């Protein structure tokens, strides 16, 4: 807007009280401004852009955990169903694509989504810490922030660490002495028979549920999806999704521990 320069030029030179005050207090000092970037770069540099990326990648990750859970629940059918499902994943879109190619496309997309989700979270956290270098000395009394929203960072880190362990346990088999490639049902039962490994899976899935409880609601705000006709449904969706994933995933190690699946 052109008139902006006319109306504020004199103020910016330090003509108003606020600016004279700013000279004394030494701040507020803006972050360095980066101008003239093409729009995707400009968008990514903005916090709103990063939150948008977090929401979109979050939706992709929600889709993944849902499909992953549905696949895993086949343990309640039979060992054959699980092993067949694992084999089918490798043969999707055959013969149009060679074996496992589509699976790798999915995996690369998933890795990209994780990378962007975590990078955005890290950069936004840095920005937020910088926005309040001196904390409240008298303590804070939160009235609206819930446990889930305030622990997103920590539940996120728990899920990230669990993910690495989970891959080492049941995908690569590096941390699993009984691992047999291509026998997912047997590998799963072997792992969950040890109570401490089952406990890791249960704790991690509860953390995932808490993370989804906030994230699956907050993503609507980040994307700007706000309408009185469905605002209430956003909360139900997030609660329902979190409960579904947590109960579905936790039921498997519990079923193995109690002997319902063996």
């Amino acid at each position, binding site marked *: 807007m*052109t008139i902006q320069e006319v109306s504020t030029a004199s103020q910016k030179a330090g003509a108003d009280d606020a600016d004279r005050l700013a000279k004394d207090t030494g701040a507020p000092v803006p972050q360095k401004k980066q101008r003239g970037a093409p729009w995707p770069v400009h968008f990514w540099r903005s916090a709103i852009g990063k939150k948008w990326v977090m929401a979109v990648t979050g939706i992709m990750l929600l889709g993944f955990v849902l499909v992953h859970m549905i696949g895993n629940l086949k343990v309640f059918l039979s060992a054959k169903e699980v092993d067949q499902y694992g084999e089918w994943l490798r043969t999707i879109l055959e013969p149009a694509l060679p074996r496992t190619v589509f699976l790798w496309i999915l995996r690369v997309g998933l890795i990209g989504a994780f990378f962007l989700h975590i990078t955005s979270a890290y950069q936004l956290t840095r920005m*937020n810490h910088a926005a309040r270098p001196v904390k409240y000395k*008298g303590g804070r009394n939160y009235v609206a922030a819930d446990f889930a929203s*305030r622990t997103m960072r920590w539940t996120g880190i728990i899920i990230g660490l669990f993910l690495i362990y989970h891959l080492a346990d049941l995908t690569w088999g590096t941390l699993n002495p009984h691992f047999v490639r291509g026998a997912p049902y047997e590998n799963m039962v072997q792992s969950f028979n040890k109570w401490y490994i089952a406990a890791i899976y249960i704790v991690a899935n509860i953390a995932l549920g808490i993370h989804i409880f906030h994230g699956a609601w907050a993503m609507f705000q980040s994307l700007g999806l706000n309408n009185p006709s469905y605002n209430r449904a956003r909360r139900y969706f997030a609660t329902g999704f979190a409960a579904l994933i947590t109960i579905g995933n936790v039921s498997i190690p519990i079923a193995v521990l109690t002997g319902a699946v063996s």
Partner: protein
Amino acid sequence: MHVNLRVWRQAGPKADGGFEEYSVDDVSPDMSFLELFDVLNEQLLADGVEPVAFDHDCREGICGSCSMMINGQAHGPEKGTATCQLHMRKFEDGANITVEPWRARSFPIVKDLAVNRSALDRIIESGGFITVPTGSASEANLTLIPKDVADWAMDAAACIGCGACVAACPNGAAQLFTAAKVSHLNILPQGQPERYERVVAMVDTMEEYFGSCTLHRECEAACPKEISIDFIAMMNRDYVKAQFKNRRLSAQR
């Protein structure tokens, strides 16, 4: 009434600060929280102590000058009220009350409880207006605006710019302030010609000074005008749309 105050004292922007304890007697339950500080300052003057510096002006909840973190809550425990409208009857006799200034990188402390909030002015300067020559008011029915729209715009325009949203936000973000200032123009016909320039300019300026939104909703709870975070979603949507919008066609209906 009698209250025990723990007040942040800081001689100047670069001085070290700390809490001082004061005991105030003969507090009327009908006093506002600012009047409590008037009584305290009279007492301090009589004792030969420098009075506590704090921001205040209209004392009727519409100027946005008062700014106190009372017991860890911006503007204190009462919902939808500024510090000046918070009455002492909301506290128990003999209450211990901790009072601290707003804290954010871009709200540097001037003295005691007074902070410099001019970063909010920088956001307004970057686009919180419509570029038209002002003159006498135009005919009221010239631009028809549905009642729902007018009410919603007024809900955003109720922002008094006190900065409680920044103070209350765990991330020190000014999203609620900026969203209110963007939205009260962006949802009215008069704001449409500069809608996308406005949202980009104001958001970019906001992010030079403040943190980002993680949807804790603390701002909404602290806001003395109870402005809804729905405006933040609107601002987010307009910011995303602005990236793709062909502005040469923006006069089309």
